[in-house]
């Protein structure tokens, strides 16, 4: 690598004009990586890298320069160290189901973790599991099921997304309303830092000794290191579960019912809202769940816990829904019926492809008390820009997901979608909300960071990032806008 050092500094997105000049360097890096992971697991031809140019937000296309897929912990460490020696920037990626463009590698190295999918240990006594980062979320719960346990954070993409990606994005999911997000479930992680050091991050339930590195690492969006293994909490399956589907003739009523349930001090396991457009898409799909097609909105409400007292909560939820105008409340009859109701909700995002060829989705969190007002204003903004918004979201958390199916081949429509979503997000921020509940900032929400945070706060974030990754090679160009980072701007030769 020594002989190529002069070219190394130009590797990456800032050097698009000199693409050919560092090609020999890429070739030698590829051959070094091939020696670590095997030639089959290194991709370098542009056609083979094409499919890695998007995550689940396909509006963005950023092609990696090189992709490498380590199969073991040792290979992953060796890959990161090789990239360190080469000073090559990189982006770690799980299953590519993210919704913020966080795992896109813009002309840099992509480290795909999908081959590392061993469940290392399931400990039913300690109620914990240790897994490699490429383990699919739903497969972890499958492995825990024989012990009456499950992994609680359940992103809608749980049938495809990986635990490593969940840790990077601090993923949420419907049941995080009661059980908490990924951060609340990570006990320990082994991480290879961008400089090649392997560190063990641990969190002790009793008292913290030293800084909470798990707290910093979970949700760091691939900017702090590459996860080698994670130890997570497993949650006992509840004694009783009651899943209800309440349908409403107005979105406003459904939003008011949500606020009423939360205000009454009931903590459902999950409280999800799907509006008419979403119901239509789901009911036309293979995951049709029997949601009433003529409803303006449905609430999918799950109450769980010890059998004693469960009925009281169920009765209270039903009463509150009726008071807010629920037309009908259906209760899941058995586990199959319950699974069907949930499949409809969880696959709703994917079903949007039925509505239009392109899809934009946002992830704002707003105060739950203002849900009805904000939804009404969203509808007003959408109507003004003549776009369709399908709402499907974690109502109990106030975590909105406006899905906008549109035809991107129509530049005018695409521009209107952009303008409307920006307006919606700015309105949510103005109402005291924030720009991401679970999808992460990634690339997509970078532009909102300066609206949300002061320069000093962003600068603090930059300094934290630099502590983990002094050379700023891990997931470049994501999360924190570089031009807001004073230290970086002050560095000789810095460019944005």
């Amino acid at each position: 690598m020594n002989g190529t050092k002069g070219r190394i500094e130009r590797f990456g997105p800032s050097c698009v004009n000199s693409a050919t000049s560092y090609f020999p360097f890429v070739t030698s890096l590829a051959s070094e990586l091939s020696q670590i992971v095997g030639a089959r697991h290194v991709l370098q031809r542009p056609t083979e890298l094409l499919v890695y140019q998007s995550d689940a937000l396909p509006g963005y296309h950023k092609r990696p320069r090189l992709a490498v897929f380590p199969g073991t912990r040792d290979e992953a460490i060796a890959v990161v160290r090789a990239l360190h020696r080469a000073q090559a920037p990189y982006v770690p990626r799980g299953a590519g189901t993210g919704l913020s463009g966080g795992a896109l590698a813009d002309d840099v190295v992509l480290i795909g973790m999908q081959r590392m999918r061993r469940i290392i240990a399931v400990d039913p006594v300690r109620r914990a599991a240790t897994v490699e980062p490429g383990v699919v979320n739903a497969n972890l719960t499958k492995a825990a099921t024989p012990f009456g346990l499950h992994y609680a954070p359940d992103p809608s993409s749980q049938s495809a997304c990986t635990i490593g990606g969940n840790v990077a994005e601090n993923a949420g999911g419907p049941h995080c309303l009661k059980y908490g997000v990924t951060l609340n479930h990570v006990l320990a992680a082994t991480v290879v830092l961008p400089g090649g050091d392997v560190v063990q991050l641990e969190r002790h339930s009793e008292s913290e000794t030293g800084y909470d590195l798990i707290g910093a690492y979970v949700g760091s969006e691939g900017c702090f290191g590459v996860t080698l293994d994670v130890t997570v909490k497993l949650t006992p399956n509840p004694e009783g579960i009651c899943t209800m589907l309440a349908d409403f003739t107005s979105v406003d009523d459904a939003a008011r019912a949500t606020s009423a349930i939360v205000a009454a001090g009931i903590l459902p396991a999950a409280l999800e809202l799907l509006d008419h457009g979403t119901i239509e898409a789901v009911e036309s799909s293979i995951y049709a769940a029997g949601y009433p097609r003529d409803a303006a909105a449905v609430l999918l409400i799950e109450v769980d816990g010890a059998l004693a007292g469960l009925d009281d909560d169920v009765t209270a939820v039903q009463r509150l829904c009726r008071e807010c105008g629920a037309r009908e409340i259906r209760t899941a009859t058995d586990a199959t019926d319950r699974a069907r109701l949930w499949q409809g909700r969880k696959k709703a995002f994917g079903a949007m492809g039925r509505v239009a060829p392109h899809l934009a989705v946002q992830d704002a969190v707003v105060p739950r008390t203002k849900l009805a007002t904000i939804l009404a204003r969203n509808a007003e903004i959408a109507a003004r820009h003549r776009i369709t918004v399908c709402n499907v979201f974690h109502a109990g958390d106030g975590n909105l997901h406006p899905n906008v199916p549109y035809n991107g081949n129509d530049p005018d429509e695409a521009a209107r979608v952009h303008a409307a979503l920006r307006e919606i997000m700015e309105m949510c921020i103005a109402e005291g909300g924030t720009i991401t509940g679970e999808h992460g900032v990634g690339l997509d929400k970078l532009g909102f960071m300066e609206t949300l945070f002061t320069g000093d706060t962003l600068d603090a974030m930059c300094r934290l990032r630099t502590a983990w990754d002094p050379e700023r090679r891990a997931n470049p160009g994501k999360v924190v806008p570089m031009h807001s980072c004073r230290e970086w701007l002050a560095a000789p030769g810095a460019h944005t």
Partner: protein
Amino acid sequence: MTALPPAARSAALPLPGSDNCVHCGFCLQACPTYLALDDENDSPRGRIVIMKAIADGALSFDDTDAQLHLDRCLGCRACETACPSGVPYGQLLELTRERGAARRTLPVVARLILFVFSNAPLLAVSMWKARVFRATGIPSLLARIPGRLGFAMAMLASTRRSAAGRNRSYSPRSSVARGKVATLDGCVMEGLFAPVNRATERTLAANGYMLVKAESQRCCGALHAHAGDASTARELARANIAAFEASGAEFIAVNSAGCGAAMKEYGHLLAGDSAWSERARAFGAKVRDVSELLAAAGPAQGGTLDVKVAYDAPCHLLHGQRVSAPPLAVLAAIPGLELVPLTDNDQCCGSAGIYNLVEPEISDLVLASKLRNIAASGAPVIATGNPGCLMQIGAGLLRSNGVAQSRHPVELLDASYAQRI
């Protein structure tokens, strides 16, 4: 903010249904080749990107990477039953292969098989030779030698049925008349699994169906369509539509899932042929998997068979035709039969038409996990309703010295009926 997609290219070819893909990735874990190879180029989502790039003109049909990853697709369509947006993946693949067919040559073995299947006299002779060879016992002896020759021998050996299985007879006893049915003979089914075809006829008759013959029927054309030879597939489809129309049958019973899936989709295959499109749609509406007809009739209970059976769903039955419950209803009509769970029984076995002959390494990888799950199930009989799967699993079991055998569900029902009627 979400970036704009590139403007549509003027040279773009249409790829109907591909726009439904929102890249959610829910198909990834359903895909056997993604699970075996760990590269998204070998996943449905990745292949859709490749196919769209080809249709857009951004990627050439001749691109070797694109060809490699499209060729590696089993065509099992498990992604279709995972897809919330209803992307017609199988149709996209066939259309892309059809467009690329003119610009490339298929492997020799594939061309040979497709030619033989499209030529009725040649097919009859080839199957006769195969049966003669099978009767010599040589395939059984060579079934365990390493490599593809051994595997082919094991496939042939696995189609052999005992005298008892070949010579069952009982009289129909249903008092209900359920309509006229013509059965598809099927190239491999009539050629190597004739006892299963007879069992199909007997069990249908025992459940009140009146069997009529569709003379001059041909190969269904599924393999040709999968390989991109759409013109031969259409020619065969037209011949079959005429043959089955002439039979006067209300239903067309198919005991080969791959053939049934293709025949149900004749309407799509001939959509651009104005003289035939309506007839093709009407034909497709009459096609039933044999298990669907049997399940609609009950089916009648048979005599006791004390046997443990695991059911493996053929991809083109479960994913292609979305038929899941009827085969289980057929097995449930057999008193004494214990159905044991088979992990991942909705996943491909690696047979996939002629895939196991043209992509042997990946086929073996996919088969290996199927065999592990079968061993774990402890079942001595694996029921599956497709000749490719019967041979693939049958060969795998023979070669791994397993005691289990693969059987068509109607064979089991037939044996049960022979006990009682």
